[in-house]
């Protein structure tokens, strides 16, 4: 169907591999026709704003799943970060310092998970499941179960503000996406993540510090989850005691839809972003179409399945 030279061009190949991209385009075209006001700047921003924290959580999963890990604690760490930032602001810290310290805490949380997994050798699943419990609990304890108001305008602007007409959180997510794309695509440590996921023994024998790098992946995951948590808190000007709960499955779903493998070594930033966009577009479409809440999950499940199947068909036919 395509001349061989063209087919081996890396970018084209990536697009062909991403049959899911076509599914996404079809989804958008479909909604443009049937959903009122789907094609509007406000709605585009609405989708992107909803996608922003999800994209950040998806990046967490991307990075740890590349090394054949999984992070179930991303949502909990996001909520935890918001609570810490809010508490510190309540205690009088200026918002930038509170935010930085909260992000540091998030990164520490991730690092701790990474160390337990890679040096104490508890499985990724168990460690981060425990992390999910522990950080959710800490959030409840910190907030005393009540939403904490955040009055720092600078902080809240991270969730509500605009820059050049585009909501701040979209800029933030885009920036992190770019950083991760450069990391994975251009640096040695980025490539080492793929090597570890592809063949951990080979990576170790090649002299890659497998345990250190895997721990670092979890540290990054903590940080990115923390940034998502800051956005979530800023968006509502509140640290919600239950913020981020239940976000782990959507985050994993986003990257898996985007072609990242749970078994490690396969996946791209673009896939993760695409997966997150698909999920938030579906949710947006469901509201615009006013699908009854009883049916929303049904439609969501079917659409995800169709999208992934379509992506798959594309791939098979190109073989």
């Amino acid at each position: 169907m395509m001349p061989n030279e063209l087919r081996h061009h890396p970018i084209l190949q990536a697009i062909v591999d991403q049959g899911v991209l076509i599914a996404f385009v079809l989804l958008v075209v479909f909604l443009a026709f049937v959903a009122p006001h789907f094609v509007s700047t406000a709605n585009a921003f609405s989708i992107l704003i909803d996608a922003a924290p999800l994209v950040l959580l998806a990046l967490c999963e991307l990075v740890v799943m590349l090394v054949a890990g999984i992070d179930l604690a991303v949502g909990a760490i996001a909520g935890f970060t918001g609570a810490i930032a809010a508490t510190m602001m309540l205690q009088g810290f200026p918002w930038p310092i509170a935010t930085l310290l909260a992000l540091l805490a998030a990164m520490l949380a991730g690092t701790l998970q990474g160390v337990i997994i890679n040096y104490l050798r508890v499985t990724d699943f168990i460690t981060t499941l425990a992390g999910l419990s522990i950080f959710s609990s800490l959030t409840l304890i910190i907030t005393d179960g009540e939403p904490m108001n955040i009055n720092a305008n600078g902080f809240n602007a991270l969730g509500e503000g605009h820059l050049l007409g585009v909501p701040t959180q979209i800029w933030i997510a885009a920036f992190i996406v770019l950083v991760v794309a450069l990391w994975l695509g251009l640096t040695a440590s980025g490539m080492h993540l793929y090597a570890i996921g592809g063949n951990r023994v080979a990576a170790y024998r090649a002299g890659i510090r497998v345990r250190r790098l895997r721990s670092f992946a979890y540290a990054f995951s903590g940080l990115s989850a923390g940034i998502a948590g800051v956005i979530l808190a800023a968006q509502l000007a509140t640290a919600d005691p239950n913020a981020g709960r239940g976000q782990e499955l959507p985050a994993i779903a986003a990257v898996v839809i985007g072609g990242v493998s749970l078994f490690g070594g396969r996946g791209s930033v673009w896939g993760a972003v695409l997966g997150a966009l698909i999920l938030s577009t579906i949710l947006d479409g469901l509201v615009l179409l006013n699908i009854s809440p009883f049916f929303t999950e049904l439609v969501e499940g079917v659409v995800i399945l169709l999208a992934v199947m379509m992506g798959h068909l594309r791939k098979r036919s190109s073989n």
Partner: protein
Amino acid sequence: MPENAPLLELRNIGKRFGAVHALRGIDLQIISGEVLALLGDNGAGKSTLVKIIAGAHAPSSGEMFLAGSKVSLFDPRHAHDLGIETIYQDLAVAENLDVASNIFLGRERKSRMLGFLPILARREMRREAASALEHLAIELPLRQVVGELSGGQRQAVAIARAAYWQARLVIMDEPTAAIGVGEHEAILKLIQNLARSGVAVILVTHTMPDVWQVATRIVVLTRGEKALEGKTEELTEERVVRAMLVGRESDA
């Protein structure tokens, strides 16, 4: 560093895997410029010993000295730093990366982006990889992911990887097992060239003619123990093969 110390010395190395005693009391010296053939029947413990020397396995007991100084807390990274390159029998390549990435894995060439950010010099690595393969008379589709290569092609990648770096000791665990006739000759030549330039080579193989063609010394392992050791010219193929089997019979 004592001038006349052997490049590598193992003292009383042992290795257990749970209940399996894979190696017992192995003493071994490796001298720069020699080609040591490490022989033995299947399951004799050759690969286990190779992995210990390469830092991929920690020994259960015993000591290792490199150029006279004791090595401890040894892993493949240290082995590389000390100039030890290894071709493992169970190749262990990153199947999801291409040939050049595998050859440079862990020791990538870098260039500076914006003058300070270290990024991968992919093109340079690919060029270098191509010329390294050419030296070895190996022809490979460079952009293909290693998981899509044939068995022999994968082995060629591992060989090119070990041969590329300036090493003091190159360990080859059955490097020619799946290799074509032409490449087989090229590898034997490579071994001789390495030795000639002062590199020590440990060669594990089941192909006896190769041993007499390139090895200067022979060590035979039998059931995890050293059964025979000597200069190649002083040993006959018959005697070596018997050592492998006799050791087994007397133990059984």
